C-alpha cells in the first residue's frame, strides 16, 4: 500500500513540476573576456528540446533572453526655459538591466501572451523595473520609453523577433551580438519554451562577463588603491611629456 502511494506520487509529481518538454542547452562560450582589444562579442546559444511525450499538434516556440547586471538609472528630460534647453524633470528607474537581448522564433504576438510576459518579465519594457515617478511627473511612461530608445540605439537593448531558428520542433539556435560597452558581471540567460503564448518550460543558465589581464588589473587598482592609481597616472603623464620632449630634441639636433 505504501509502495503504491510512493509510486503514485512519483508519477504525479513530474507531471506537475517537471514539464514534458525540457531544454538541453549549449553555449558557444559561457565567459566573455574583456581584454584591451575587446570590440563586442557574439554568443551562439543552441540547444535541443528533450521530450518524454509525443509531439503536440500546436507548434512550440522558443524565446532566448540574455540580461546584464541590473543598475539604477536617472532619466532626465530637457525643456525650453527662457530660450535655452534645460533639464527640468527626471525619473529614477530603480533597476534596469545594463544589457538586454530577447530573441524569438516567431513574431512577438505569436510567441508569448501579455499575461505570460508580465509573469516572466520577458519583453524589454517588462525587464525594467520602475517603482514610481516623482509627484510632478505625470508621464513616467515617456521616460521609460526614452530609456529603451536610447539604450536600443546603442545596441544595449535588442528585440530580435524571428532570430531563433527552430528545426523540426527540436533543435534551436540563435546568435546574440553583445556590444563593446558591456558592464562586468553575471548575465542571466533564459530559454523559454512557449505554446499558444503560454510558457511550458524554462531553462536558466548564466554567462560571465569579466575583464581580464591589464584591464582587470587597472580596474582593480583604480577601485582599491585610488591614490596610488592617481599618482601612477600622473607619473605616466610626466614621463610621456619628458620622453616626447627629449625625443624631439634628438630629432631636431641630428
Amino acid at each position: 500500500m505504501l509502495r503504491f502511494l510512493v509510486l503514485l506520487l512519483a508519477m504525479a509529481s513530474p507531471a506537475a513540476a517537471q514539464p514534458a518538454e525540457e531544454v538541453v542547452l549549449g553555449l558557444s562560450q559561457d565567459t566573455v573576456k574583456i581584454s584591451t582589444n575587446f570590440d563586442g562579442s557574439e554568443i551562439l546559444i543552441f540547444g535541443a528540446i528533450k521530450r518524454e511525450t509525443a509531439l503536440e499538434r500546436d507548434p512550440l516556440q522558443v524565446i532566448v533572453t540574455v540580461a546584464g547586471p541590473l543598475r539604477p538609472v536617472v532619466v532626465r528630460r530637457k525643456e525650453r526655459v527662457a530660450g535655452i534647453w534645460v533639464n527640468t524633470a527626471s525619473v529614477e528607474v530603480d533597476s534596469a538591466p545594463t544589457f538586454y537581448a530577447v530573441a524569438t522564433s516567431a513574431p512577438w504576438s505569436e510567441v508569448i501572451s501579455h499575461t505570460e510576459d508580465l509573469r516572466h518579465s520577458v519583453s524589454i519594457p517588462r525587464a525594467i523595473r520602475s517603482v514610481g515617478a516623482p509627484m510632478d511627473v505625470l508621464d513616467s511612461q515617456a521616460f521609460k520609453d526614452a530609456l529603451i530608445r536610447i539604450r536600443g540605439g546603442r545596441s544595449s537593448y535588442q528585440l530580435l523577433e524571428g532570430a531563433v531558428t527552430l528545426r523540426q520542433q527540436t533543435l534551436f539556435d540563435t546568435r546574440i551580438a553583445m556590444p563593446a560597452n558591456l558592464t562586468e558581471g553575471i548575465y542571466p540567460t533564459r530559454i523559454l519554451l512557449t505554446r499558444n503564448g503560454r510558457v511550458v518550460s524554462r531553462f536558466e543558465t548564466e554567462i560571465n562577463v569579466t575583464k581580464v589581464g591589464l584591464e582587470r588589473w587597472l580596474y582593480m587598482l583604480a577601485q582599491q588603491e585610488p591614490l596610488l592609481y592617481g599618482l601612477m597616472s600622473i607619473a605616466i603623464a610626466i614621463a610621456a611629456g619628458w620622453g616626447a620632449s627629449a625625443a624631439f630634441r634628438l630629432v631636431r639636433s641630428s
Partner: protein
Amino acid sequence: MTMQVYLPISEVAVNAFVLLGLGGLVGVLSGMFGVGGGFLLTPLLFFIGIPPAVAVATGANQIVAASFSGLLAHLRRKTVDLRMGTVLLIGGLVGAAIGVFIFNYLKTLGQVDLLVRLCYVVFLGIIGGLMFIESLNALRNARRGAPPKRKKHTWIHALPFKMRFRTSGLYISVIPPLLVGLSVGVLAAIMGVGGGFIMVPAMIYLLGMPTKVVVGTSLFQIIFVAGFTTILHATTNYTVDVVLAVLLILGGVVGAQFGTIIGTRLKAEQLRILLAAMVLLVCGKIALELLIEPSELYTLAKPGGV
C-alpha cells in the same frame, strides 16, 4: 583599418586612432598657446561617447602630460617666469579647493551641468571676444607702423608687497597675481579645465606680462592644477581612465612639440587672434547646443553622478 581599444574605466570601446588624433590636436594648441586644451578636449570626449565624469577626470591627466612636454621646451628657451608661476599657483590651488567646494554644493542643488555650460559660454565668450578685438587692433596698428602703446601706470602699481619678476620685466605687487590665480582656480575647478584660456589673457591684460613669457608660465602652473585635479578625481570618483589617458597623451605630447615650434614662428598678435578665434568657436558651439532643440530630449545618467 579599425583599431578598437576597450577602456577599462569608461567601459566603452573606442578607435585608438581617433583618440591619438584628438590628443594630437589638443597638444598642438597646448604648445602654441600655453593653454591646457581642456576647454576643447572635454567637450570632444563627450562627443565620442566617453562618460562625462571620466572625460573631465582623464582630460585633467592628459593636460599634465601635454603641458609638461610644452613646459620643457619653454624652459630651454628661458621663457618661463618661475617666480610669477609660483605666486599664481599658490592662488590657484586655494582657488581650486574653493571651486571644488562650490561645485559639490551646486551638485546637491541639481542643474550643475547647465551651470558648467553657462560658465563656458560666458567666459569663453567674454575672453575670446576681448582678445579678438584687441589683437585685431594691435595687428592693424603694427601694419600701419604705429608704435605699440607704452605700459601705463595704473592702480595695480600702487599696491603694496611689491616683488621683482625679472623674467617678465615687472616690478609689481603680489596681490594681483595671487587674485588672478585664485579666481582662475575657482573657475577651473567648476568648469573642469586647467584654466589656461582664462589665465593667458589675464596675464597679458591684467598683469601686463610679455606674451612670450605668458605661455611657458601658464603651462607651469597648469601642470600643478591639473595634477591636483587628477588626484582628486581618482580618489573620490574613481573616474581617471589611464588607458584613455595614455592614448590621448601619446598624441598630445607629439602635438605639443609641433605646437611650440609653430608658436615661436608666429607673431604674438597672430597667436592671440588664433587663440581668440578658437575660444569663440567652442563658445559658439556650446551656446548653439543650449539654444537649438536637441534631437533627443532625454538623457541617461547614473544616480548621484554628474
